[in-house]
């Protein structure tokens, strides 16, 4: 890896844009991801990534920035899932599944049209698996503005969101509007998926959303550390992934680099596996940790 910091690496514009957008989207994804895991809405996150695919491929067809498509479709999809879904968990799953099926069908249509239009299969690769080195620097302001709004909304609804994620019954009894909070969170989730879609592609955005969050939840005991660790892991995976992908141009004689998304997702996966090692887990488990049989026993009634 002696090529790594060759002259020009940090002054290269695509690299700097990739670092900036990668970091911002990794942070938003990780923070939203912590709540997504707590709320058991990973499936909704995945469904939104399918909806984002529709938006991204549709935007390409209409000569718009894929980011606009990712975000627009995600927000519409999130609204639709909340509107169709009743409060009950099962109902929400069904609603999510129905929106997902239709969105994927539309994505198939748009990707077909895009391929025919541009006479290249590159667009499918770009939408589904990302191409962080080809991002236009002009997308940075939109990425930053959407991130600031999303994190701002989460900061404002922090405590009600936390309680309604733990128990909707407890939240409702305190006069918290669980549905409004749920809708706001779904919109934040849509933005996070949209942002990570431009970084690693819509198909892999779930990895950036769930991976760092799930790893952080294994390693920490309180929420603040979970959020910080998740954000740090997301940024680390993204940056190291970018460096490795850049470096991989020199790995083979054919001078063909490997995709960034692969490295980012592989690093996230590796981190998750390492966090599950008994030696790591023992340090964060509680002093009185009982066998987890109580959850079964309590559900049984």
């Amino acid at each position: 890896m002696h090529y790594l910091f060759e002259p020009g690496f940090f002054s290269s514009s695509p690299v700097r844009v990739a670092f900036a957008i990668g970091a911002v989207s990794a942070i938003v994804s990780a923070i939203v991801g912590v709540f997504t895991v707590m709320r058991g809405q990973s499936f909704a996150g995945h469904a939104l990534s399918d909806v984002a695919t529709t938006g991204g491929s549709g935007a390409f067809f209409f000569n718009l920035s894929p980011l606009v498509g990712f975000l627009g479709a995600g927000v519409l999809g999130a609204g639709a899932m909340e509107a169709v879904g009743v409060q009950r968990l099962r109902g929400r799953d069904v609603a999510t599944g129905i929106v997902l099926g239709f969105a994927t069908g539309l994505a198939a249509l748009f990707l077909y049209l895009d391929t025919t239009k541009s006479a290249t299969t590159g667009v499918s690769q770009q939408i589904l698996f990302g191409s962080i080195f080809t991002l236009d620097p002009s997308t940075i302001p939109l990425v930053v503005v959407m991130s600031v709004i999303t994190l701002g909304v989460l900061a404002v609804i922090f405590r009600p969101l936390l309680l309604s994620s733990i128990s909707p019954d407890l939240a409702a009894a305190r006069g918290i509007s669980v549905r409004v909070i749920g809708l706001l969170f779904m919109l934040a989730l849509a933005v996070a998926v949209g942002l990570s879609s431009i970084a690693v592609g819509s198909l892999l955005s779930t990895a950036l959303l769930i991976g760092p969050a799930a790893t952080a939840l294994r390693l920490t005991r309180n929420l603040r550390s979970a959020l910080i660790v998740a954000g740090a892991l997301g940024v680390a995976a993204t940056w190291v992934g970018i460096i490795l992908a850049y470096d991989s141009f020199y790995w083979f004689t054919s001078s063909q680099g490997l995709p960034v998304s692969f490295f980012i997702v592989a690093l996230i996966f590796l981190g998750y596996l390492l966090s599950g090692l008994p030696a790591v887990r023992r340090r964060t488990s509680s002093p009185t940790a009982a066998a987890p049989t109580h959850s079964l026993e309590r559900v049984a009634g």
Partner: protein
Amino acid sequence: MSDAPVLEVDHVSVSFGGRTILDEVSFDVQRGEFTGLIGSNGVGKTTLLRAILGLQRLASGEIRVEGEALSRHNHRLGYVPQKVVLDVDIPMRARDFVALGLDAQRFGFSRRTTAQRDRVDEILRDVDAERFADSRVGSLSGGEQQRVLIAHALVGEPSLLLLDEPLANLDPKSVQEIVSLLHRVANDHDVAVLLSAHEMNALLPVMDRIVYVTNGRAASGTTDEVVQSDVLSALYGHHVDVLKLHGRVLVIAEPGQDDAEIPQHPTLTVN
């Protein structure tokens, strides 16, 4: 402090899609009293508790807390819902979850004051949860989680604590512990308790009053007044016998009657 009862349930009826769940239910809970809301599963105990919390529309009647009509969030009420399982993925220590009981409905962030931290410590001590105060809530046993939920409900200094089937799914030892804990905490903090259960025997030593619900109707009074053959027969609409044995109560339907509605009995054990 007003002289009105902590809770007045005044001819309350609730119906879902034309089906009457609660029919003209009336009872009061006085300051500091321990009241058991007893009835089989599905008789409307949860609906009644939700109505008291302002989460259930009433077809008729009125509910007052300390003499005032219900509002959306009443800080005089503490609540422990049915079947809350604190998930292993929740990145919170027991003390963080209890502290959330102070101000979870507020927007934005705020730093905990020393007074708030002391309050959390005090309440954790009161429910014997100090030992696991710094453990993640998801790693706790059912009985331990129940204590943390009770502390979460109590930390805001309510005057009435509503608990929905807090004893279901606990082992007999934990049931005893939670019942005596609630009794002690209610006395120490001058909090009235309204606790729903499908089985009354564990509560007999601590109950000041009982509200016995069946078929959408309720009878209330002291245990001796209510748990009697004629009162319960009138409530069920058919004859039931009440047997008192070794400080335990059995409610038995006549042979041939459908006794599915009668609260299940404990297996008789020699104490």
